[in-house]
């Protein structure tokens, strides 16, 4: 039925247009979008942007304050801070996005199961969520990391596995309110399987809040990664990460302020970007605020 498809595409385009308009009318959201976009660009083009090799040790130029040769100064091994900062963007974004991806998948599946089946399955999963929420996340992460090699892969997995609870609650709530709707009944009558109803009928309606939670989650995951790396149990040197660069800043606090200043500023701006974008998306997608 081609006319239906056309109508659907048109409606979809209208929604996207409406969303774009509401987003571009919000200066904070635009700022967030620009920051995130720019950072992704920097991360992708790191080899061309970085003036030096981020790992190149230069014992003749250690702990130099910012100058024209080294715009952000050098660290205790004479490595160029700007280059390390640019390469650090790759690590932070990678860890943030992959960790949140893991969390979103786990949270969506568990939340969908709980909301779709209800009853004891719901009770069991939600109780589990409550219990995990009692652990201060960083303690739980540290307990797990103590037994693992602190590789980037493990960090991403551990952050992902300890931050899915919010998404699970959200998806469950959406499923609870959507499963009573007529379109679900219609799908059921037409013989669709449970999995099909859950994932291709209900889930698409819950995409908006998941998207908001995911965007906000990336900021949180980047903060967690940097804190872990700062404590020496995250991304390990010599791989540059904003968190472990700050450890060097702390060790040289009295003599080299630039080591503490710029990596933290980079984290701040990145997290700010994701938070602004997330909040902007929420406002743009929320039907209550829309009217």
């Amino acid at each position, binding site marked *: 039925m081609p006319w239906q498809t056309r109508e659907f595409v048109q409606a979809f385009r209208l929604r996207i247009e409406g969303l774009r308009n509401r987003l571009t009318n919000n200066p904070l959201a635009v700022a967030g979008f620009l920051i995130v976009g720019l950072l992704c660009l920097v991360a992708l083009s790191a080899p061309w942007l970085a003036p030096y090799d981020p790992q190149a040790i230069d014992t003749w130029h250690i702990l130099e304050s910012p100058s024209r040769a080294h715009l952000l100064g050098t660290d205790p091994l004479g490595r160029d801070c700007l280059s390390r900062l640019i390469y650090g963007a790759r690590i932070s974004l990678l860890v943030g996005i992959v960790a949140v991806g893991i969390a979103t998948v786990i949270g969506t599946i568990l939340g969908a199961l709980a909301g779709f089946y209800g009853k004891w399955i719901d009770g069991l999963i939600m109780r589990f969520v409550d219990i995990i929420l009692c652990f201060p996340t960083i303690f739980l992460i540290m307990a*797990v990391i103590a037994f693992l090699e602190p590789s980037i892969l493990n960090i991403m997995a551990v952050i992902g596995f300890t931050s899915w609870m919010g998404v699970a609650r959200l998806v469950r709530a959406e499923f609870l309110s959507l499963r009573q709707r007529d379109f679900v009944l219609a799908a059921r009558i037409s013989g669709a399987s449970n999995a099909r109803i859950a994932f291709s009928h209900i889930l698409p309606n819950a995409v908006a809040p998941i998207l908001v939670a995911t965007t906000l989650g990336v900021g949180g995951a980047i903060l967690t990664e940097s804190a872990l790396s700062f404590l020496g149990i995250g991304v390990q040197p010599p791989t540059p990460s904003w968190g472990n660069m700050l450890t060097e800043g702390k060790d040289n606090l009295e003599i080299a302020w630039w080591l503490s200043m710029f990596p933290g500023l980079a984290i701040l701006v990145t997290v700010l970007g994701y*938070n602004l974008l997330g909040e902007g998306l929420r406002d743009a997608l929320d039907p209550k605020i829309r009217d």
Partner: protein
Amino acid sequence: MALFLYLIKKILTLGPTFLGITLISFMVMHLAPGEPMSLQADFNPKMTPEMRERLRAQYGLDRPLHIQYLQWLKGLAVLDLGRSFSPDRRPVWDKIKERLPVTLLINVLAIGLILVVAVPLGVAAAVRHNSFFDQVTTVLVFIAYAAPAFWVALLLMLYLGVHLGWLPISGLHSLMGYEQMSGWEKLLDWCRHLILPVLVSALGGLAGLSRYTRSSMLEVLRQDYVTTARAKGLPERKVIYRHALRNALLPLITILGLSIPGLIGGSVIFESIFAIPGVGQLMWTSVMARDYPLLMGNLVIVSVLTLLGNQLADMGYALADPRIRTGVQVED
């Protein structure tokens, strides 16, 4: 009566959650790849297979998992969490016990600071909705929320500690001359050392709570009864503080309860930065040393504390909300 029943119901759910916490802590430790024992043994060249077996037996690691769990749970009931792997081999609970007060003190002070600053800030921003003041605080709150706490700590240390030399930047009290101080001087010394840690640990929660206060207040100010109160000719102060704020504060109790894990988790970071001998620093050293009984004890104690904090917040909510207090069902 209704309140009593509500509290009983709350307390009854505490048990299963507590068991869940212990079970997950236990599983995290035991299902992780690499046995805790081997971490110690692998680096010891004199370790023979027999000695390794004996060591395993000594820690009960040769028994089936569920037996180990029950054994550990039995110990937990009398706060016997085993002995630390560190050379002093002291009981884990003793180590945690002596560090708990410091962490709790800083967290309580931080919560106090958050309440005292965030609520008035949020109310002021909501009352002057969309004004210059509102916009400035919104931007500041966004920045404070995105700033990594340990970085802010470094900057404050750099500026107030190193550059201006106003505040001490590490430890709980001065190392030189502390013994000779009088009681008041000691107290003052403590306070000076606590300013930066409390400030840093309050920052994230402060930003979050003031934002929640603002939106909660905005919501309440739109309600009909606020219009009614204004129409009666009540002074604006009374409308805001008597009528609106009381209802706006209700959801904040829950938010505050939910922020407890984050606050306690933050202890790891600021205690390691400011060299404060609290539970967070203990956790960090136990991770670094792979001191597995200490690690497990820490995890459980901290989570149980969080659970209790959440319960307190829940009860506070029940006490504050007349719908729960009296058991009268109100249609929304």
